[in-house]
């Protein structure tokens, strides 16, 4: 059972504004999707997640490019900048 309050909580955690009208349609959609996916609980086999095939991929901790090489191209994509900094509203 999903409530509108649950949707508000999720939207707040995910930093997404959802209109009052959409909260209700989201609620019914997510409730029916969760009802469907809940069938994983019926998994017949008792086992634990097997991570034996997973391994770390490492590389040497060395500098691979010149300092500042990508600064301009990356910062040029930012909605707001000040010099070589991304600009955001103050949080304190």
């Amino acid at each position: 059972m999903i409530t509108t309050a649950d949707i508000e909580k999720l939207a707040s955690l995910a930093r997404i504004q959802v209109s009052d009208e959409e909260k209700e349609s989201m609620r019914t959609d997510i409730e029916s999707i969760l009802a469907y996916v809940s069938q994983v609980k019926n998994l017949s086999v008792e086992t634990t997640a097997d991570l034996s095939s997973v391994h770390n991929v490492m590389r040497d901790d060395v500098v691979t490019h010149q300092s500042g090489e990508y600064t301009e191209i990356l910062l040029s994509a930012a909605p707001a900048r000040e010099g070589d900094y991304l600009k955001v509203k103050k949080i304190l």
Partner: protein
Amino acid sequence: MIDLNTLTILNARKSLDAKEYSAVDLAQAYLDEIAKKNTELNVYLEVYDDVLTQAAAADARIAQGESCPLLGIPLAIKDNILIQGKKVSAASKILENYVASYDATVITKLKAQGAVFLGRVNMDEFAMGGSTENSAYGVTKNPHDTGRVAGGSSGGSAVAVAANMALGALGSDTGGSVRQPAAFCGVVGCKPTYGAVSRSGLMAMGSSLDIIGPIGKTVEDTEIIFDAIRGQDVLDGTTISQSSSFKTQSSSFKIGVPWDVVNQEGVDGAIKENFTQAIKKLEASGCEIVDVSLPNIGLSLAVYYILMPAEVSSNLARFDGVKYGLHVDGKDLLEDYLLTRGTGFGPEVRRRILLGTYVLSSGYYDAYYGKAQVARNVLQREFADAFRTVDIIVTPTAPMPAWKIGEKGDPLSAYLADIFTVTANIVGIPALSVPSGFVDVDGKKLPLGIQFMAPHGGESVLFDIGKKFFGE
């Protein structure tokens, strides 16, 4: 005049090398076709302004006697793969004016071959959907019946190839997004083994599932593009080295059919009929057909719709209106986030982020995500067991032909269309959709597809059986 209807990458290569026409002529033929059809079909979100320049550069290389499989071949690129200096939006408002900062590894490889990029093609927003109806820039129409969807999420890539608006295309496949539109549009689509193709420069959706895959008119063309983009990459730690251990038995294959899955409720009668015919055809061509049992395959879709949204909610956290893309100004930083993400993401993307946030939240994690991970391991084991007795497992690609635009209003009914395709992504194995004929619906002939699945690294087996089935 170049006859685009019968053109393949293979014979275009021969004509270009024999100087029967130039890469510029070929590119121009496709640009003309795009100009004729794009308004109606809504395939290209942007046709690049430097197409003929790219083609001229290919001609210069051809003139010097150079030849490689994709030199001068015009391709369409899904709008979630980065080409430096070009716009790339994932068909989302949140990236409407975003210009790629670097080349995806697949693009670097295609540029080295001298392929010509015609433009970026439509998709479901952030690859979330199976019809391109979730694009922020309108639905792509199926060329076989423009009242129907093209499939998705790589709908633009499939239609570009099917409607002669590109000679080949790249898509991405997280749960069937290359194979299902290929089936709906009557072309070939390949989902490679997880890790066989680098995802550096592909916008992430579900990182344990995502892979870039080629779409072509023939199995051979699809294989040519796959060979060009595959390989281990230091920029994607999940890539694997090319395995050459696979022996190909091109004379006869042992093919497993999970009949209980194919015959389940919800699979269209025309699909079952077409699939049965396809199996007879395979049998007649010398393949041995056996029944395979995959006891928990019925859980695949549920597993997928837990793991994928969980990964989506994490991957799409990066869109914050600060680093790149849309910024909607609010009264403080928190409101900047809420408004940017609330207005920038479309309904399906918002829904999946919330769903993923739910299944990962404290108190529900074990019941959903934890259980789905275990089920994923069980499925991997069941497939590994099945592949000890068969070379290939085969199903229809989709449980129905292309549906009418707007027909699937509620999200769950649209998700059910992924029932045959998600398993390969969950297990990580390669899969290939090949056209298997047509079904008459409302006076239109709608294409259908058959899906071949092989063990990890078994693409060559898929291409072999695909060519045999498709008569190449």
